[in-house]
């Protein structure tokens, strides 16, 4: 078998195996559901209840899309990426694969597609909710840049998951981080509390966080307000952070503890 043909077969089989693992692992699925679908369903449900009470929708879903996106992307990046990777390292699965001709880059490359599909689907749902059908003008104006912000945010938070999963050795430690980081991100990114509430120096500090680049930019685009960073700069920063975290993850990745 030629080397390139073999590499193709290894890529295909490993990507399939990684996808099967994700789809057949109930814990990963629960993490994904809690992070995105359940949260979304909760906001839709409350919005509908309030609409019945007050006669009109208060726009709760649209007003919290940034928060929902952040939690959904972090659930994929942490709960469905970093946690399984570290657990596989702890169990010895990565050690087993590390003794075969499969390289670190190939392994990570085949790990990502299943997660990317889920993230793209989440982006699609969020984009549909942000630019509802019928609002033709709004769609034509905002869908493309909004979609780009969502995709870059998703890629960046997936890369964060790979960076965390690259080296950690203990699954309990990464699970704690998977609970802690979304809470910190919620508070610090403007998803829950507007950044304007924080004192000036703190706000500047929070604006330096990648999660803030995403949420603040997305929320500003939704509200058709001025984003805290120019749109192009925010996209460039998110893209750079994604590339840097991916590169660091590939460099730091360890097969065993």
């Amino acid at each position: 078998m030629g080397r390139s043909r073999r590499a193709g077969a290894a890529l295909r089989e490993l990507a399939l195996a990684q996808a099967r693992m994700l789809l057949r692992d109930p814990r990963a699925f629960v993490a994904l559901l809690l992070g995105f679908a359940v949260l979304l369903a909760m906001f839709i449900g409350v919005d509908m209840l309030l609409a019945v009470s007050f006669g009109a929708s208060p726009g709760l879903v649209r007003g919290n899309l940034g928060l929902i996106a952040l939690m959904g992307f972090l659930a994929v990046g942490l709960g469905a990426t970093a946690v399984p990777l570290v657990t596989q390292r702890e169990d010895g699965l990565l050690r087993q694969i590390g003794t075969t001709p499969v390289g670190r880059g190939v392994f990570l490359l085949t790990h990502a597609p299943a997660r990317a599909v889920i993230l793209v689907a989440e982006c699609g749902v969020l984009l549909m909710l942000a630019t509802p059908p019928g609002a033709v003008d709004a769609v034509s104006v905002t869908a493309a840049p909004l979609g780009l912000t969502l995709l870059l945010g998703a890629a960046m938070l997936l890369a964060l998951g790979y960076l965390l999963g690259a080296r950690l050795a203990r699954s309990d430690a990464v699970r704690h981080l998977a609970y802690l980081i979304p809470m910190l991100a919620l508070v610090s990114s403007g998803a829950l509390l507007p950044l304007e509430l924080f004192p000036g120096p703190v706000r500047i500090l929070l604006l330096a966080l990648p999660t803030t680049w995403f949420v603040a930019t997305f929320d500003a685009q939704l509200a058709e307000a001025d984003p805290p960073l120019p749109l192009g700069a925010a996209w460039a920063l998110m893209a750079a952070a994604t590339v840097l975290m991916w590169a660091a993850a590939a460099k730091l990745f360890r097969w065993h503890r």
Partner: protein
Amino acid sequence: MMGATADRVVEVDRLRKSYGDHEVLRGISFHVRRGEVFGLLGPNGAGKTTALETLVGLRRPTSGTVEVLGLVPARDRRAFTERVSVQPQAAALFPTLTVFETLRLFASFYSGPRDPESVISEFGLEAARRTRVKHLSGGQQRRLLLGIASIGNPEILVLDEPSAGLDPASRRNLWDVIERQRELGATVILSTHQMDEATRLCDRLAILVAGRIEAEGSPEELIREHSRVSTVAFFLPERSSSGDAAAVAVAELERAGITGGITASPERDGLRIAVETEDPDGVLRRIAFTPGLHATGFRVIRSSLEDVFLEVSDGA
């Protein structure tokens, strides 16, 4: 001599490995010849796993050299992993994949893999073909791991405690599988702390104690070199079970020229005698030709690898 050297597929020279201040391997050297089963025998914590992990490039030596098939494992990873398969001690598989999916996955990593179906039948996994890995028994999982180790058609198989945690029937089954790999021409390197496993499987072995190789050779050579003493046991019937009778019997044996470690244990209708000796044949002759002894129920208990292991471990 040249031929013997050329036939070596593994050369380990003055290998040291430390974790911080703790030195796990203290300058070990050994070689493995093509086609043999070589065992690293040692108690828990002796450094067997570290030695094997360094041998296969999972860890880098602190000093010393490791060469396998002319390759440096930690450096020449791609070429090395094509030719050497490893079953690590703490190995796991994708739990939600089936046996067939797992074998097909690992087969895709190699340039000239075996057919997963043939591995399934060779390792007795037909009934578990569609079973997910997490539902396999311990013995089936070990056989699957061995199947994975063999699926790339490796020249060398490295197995870290392959039968750890298995019940006796599964262990024997696994030993049959390893012996079949040897018959097929594979070189096998394994670590174990089980004497019966080492005795049955290994052509040669090294006893590793506290990071040092304390003895090396075939099981027979090691027994011959390190433990010369055998025990000749027999029964003297119709003797009183009193302490005096035992002393009389011992004196009687000494008069017959049998000296050394003689113990006499009174039983219901006679005395059970055990003589520790380096010359069991001579002791048997003397007993047989001593008039009036009427000894019965002879047994010669030769030293085992376990005796050698204990002697070497105690002396280290």
